[in-house]
């Protein structure tokens, strides 16, 4: 280990399982425990949002990054999940009053949150399968436009079925069930399933389809089956994310699930890096935390007795500009193809390292190298 650059020495540190454990497991976990103990605080709200966006962006990455179909329709699947979960958890009397046109069995059903979540995902996946004939027969940016059309159709259905969805007035009084433990349990399950998916033979097939559909097909990859199934899996988790989002907001309407929402998720996915699930994690954190720094500017900052004018929408401008810059100069996003965070979560070495003496020695020598400069 001689004369390595600073960057290389820092990366060498990240190669130590123990460092990964502290950085990616212990610190976030303790932070989440802290947030879980202060459920009313502002930071906890942000952390919940981050978790929900991780679910949404990582599921979007499965289809956009790994199977190479650029979908922009996540908001539509979120909406389906959100409304299904809301219908399943709202109390019977509320449903009978507010949504009289719901089928009787649904009015009388009240499911636990976990069941509602799974149903939300399943409903979104079902819709994905039903509309999948459109994405099989289109490609490139036409596929994106078709998925945009799906958002418009779902929005029209929500807004115009007043006796089921309360139309543009929206559903209120949804139970606030998206607590930190609930959200992050879903995050871990989502990332585990998606990680196992992309590392399986099935996932290799997806990636080969993305890189060269013709070659993949000649090697026996069933493109149609792959397209439909990956679209459905992605939609399942989008539905889950939508349900979590509904139980976080507690009041939803069609406007919560329109172009802007889809665009936000695409933005997170691209900024983090759409070829990596870890990218979705970092992107969600980055795109939620960064705008918080612009919030004082938006509300008109006080400087030495003067009040700057309010710039409502400034953070959106900065994020959009950042997205354009990133696309031009660093197209693969923050994480590129690296899977370091999610890999650390789900590999045994990260946890067994705690009990291995040699790992501590490795950290010590890496640290020493970092500070000595050799």
């Amino acid at each position, binding site marked *: 280990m001689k004369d390595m650059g600073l960057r290389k020495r820092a990366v060498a540190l990240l190669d130590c399982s123990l460092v990964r454990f502290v950085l990616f497991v212990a610190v976030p976990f303790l932070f989440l425990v802290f947030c879980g103990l202060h459920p009313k605080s502002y930071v906890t709200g942000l952390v919940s949002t981050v978790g929900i966006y991780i679910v949404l962006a990582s599921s979007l990455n499965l289809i956009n990054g790994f199977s190479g179909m*650029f979908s922009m329709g996540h908001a539509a699947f979120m909406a389906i999940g959100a409304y299904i979960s809301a219908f399943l958890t709202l109390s019977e009397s509320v449903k009978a009053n507010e949504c009289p046109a719901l089928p009787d069995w649904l009015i009388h059903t009240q499911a636990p949150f976990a069941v509602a979540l799974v149903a939300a995902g399943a409903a979104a996946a079902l819709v994905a399968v039903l509309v999948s*004939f*459109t994405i099989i*027969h*289109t*490609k*490139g*940016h*036409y596929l*994106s*436009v*078709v998925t*945009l*059309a799906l958002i*418009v*159709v779902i*929005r*029209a*259905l929500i*807004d*115009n079925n007043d006796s089921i969805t309360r139309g543009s007035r929206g559903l209120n009084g949804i139970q606030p069930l998206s607590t930190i433990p609930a959200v992050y349990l879903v995050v871990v399950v989502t990332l585990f399933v998606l990680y196992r998916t992309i590392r399986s033979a099935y996932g290799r097939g997806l990636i080969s389809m993305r890189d060269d559909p013709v070659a993949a097909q000649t090697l026996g990859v069933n493109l149609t089956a792959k397209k439909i199934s990956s679209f459905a899996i992605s939609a399942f988790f989008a539905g889950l994310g939508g349900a979590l989002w509904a139980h976080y907001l507690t009041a939803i309407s069609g406007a919560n699930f329109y*172009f*802007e929402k889809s*665009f936000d998720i*695409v*933005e997170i996915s*691209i900024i983090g890096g759409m070829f990596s699930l870890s990218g979705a994690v970092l992107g969600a954190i980055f795109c939620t935390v960064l705008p918080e720094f612009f919030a004082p500017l938006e509300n008109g900052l006080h400087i030495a007795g003067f009040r700057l004018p309010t*710039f*409502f*929408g*400034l953070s*959106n*401008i900065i994020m*959009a*500009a950042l*997205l*354009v810059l990133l*696309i*031009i100069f660093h*197209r693969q996003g923050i994480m590129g193809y690296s899977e370091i965070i999610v890999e650390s979560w789900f590999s045994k070495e990260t946890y067994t390292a705690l009990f291995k003496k040699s790992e501590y020695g490795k950290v010590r020598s890496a640290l020493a190298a970092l500070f000595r400069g050799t």
Partner: protein
Amino acid sequence: MNITYFLTILVSGLKLGSIYAIVAIGYSIVYGILRLINFAHGDIMTIGVYLILVFMNTMGLPLFVCVLLSVALSVGVGLLIERLAYRPLRDATEETTLISSLAVSALLQNVLQIIFSAQRKPFLLPKSISTPMQVGMFKLSVINIATYVVTAVFLVLLYALLKKTKIGAAMRACSENMRAARLMGVNVNRVVMFAFFIGSAMAVVAGLLLAGEYKTVYPSLGFVPGLKAFCAAVVGGIGSLGGAVTGAFVIGVAEILFQGLMPTTMTAYRDAFVFLLMVAVLLLRPNGLFGKNEGGRS
């Protein structure tokens, strides 16, 4: 159903179709050359309307002068977007440029929101041109009639430009095969800039007609009509001028017919109907009703 009602619907459908046509052409010529779906096109429309409003209210200039000034500035914005957000992405995949254009669109809408606030502002054209008169059996205002005339004039001019001038030939060459055109000595960047120039200028005029119709302006005014004009271009066959225009009239008339003839419970599905029409065309005739075979669309 009586025939007058039907004709009235048809006339207003043609009016909407004319506006879509002007916007769809902007989409189509840029797409024809760059294979880029420029979602910021609808927002250029909005910018143009706001600028007209500013010039009218603060300087009290006649409408015609306001429109000219607005066109000049909006074209500047269009060219700036091309230079900063699209030109660096010439070699990128089509999805990448799509995202860039959506980001630019979000950026422009938020900038407009900061400058002019998110509230709807009244956009009232002078009474002399917006008061309806009785023309035969229809009630039309000067601005309505101008919509048809302007569209017709634009189409003729554009057709002449593409067929008779050198830059028009260069544009056609670039949309056939950009690399070959470059090898033949065509300055591709100039052609692209010219496409954005025409597109942006026409978008402002379309914006004026649209806002005159709505009598109001707000930051996201152009986004959905822009998307619908894009649907129109796809339906007609994007990349071809005649296709864009035909598609625009098909969509415009279909949209108004849908609203006028369907029961009232269905009319709220108007936007969804337009998008579904586009999806149907993409699935059944991937190159649009009149587009040339391109092989890449499905």
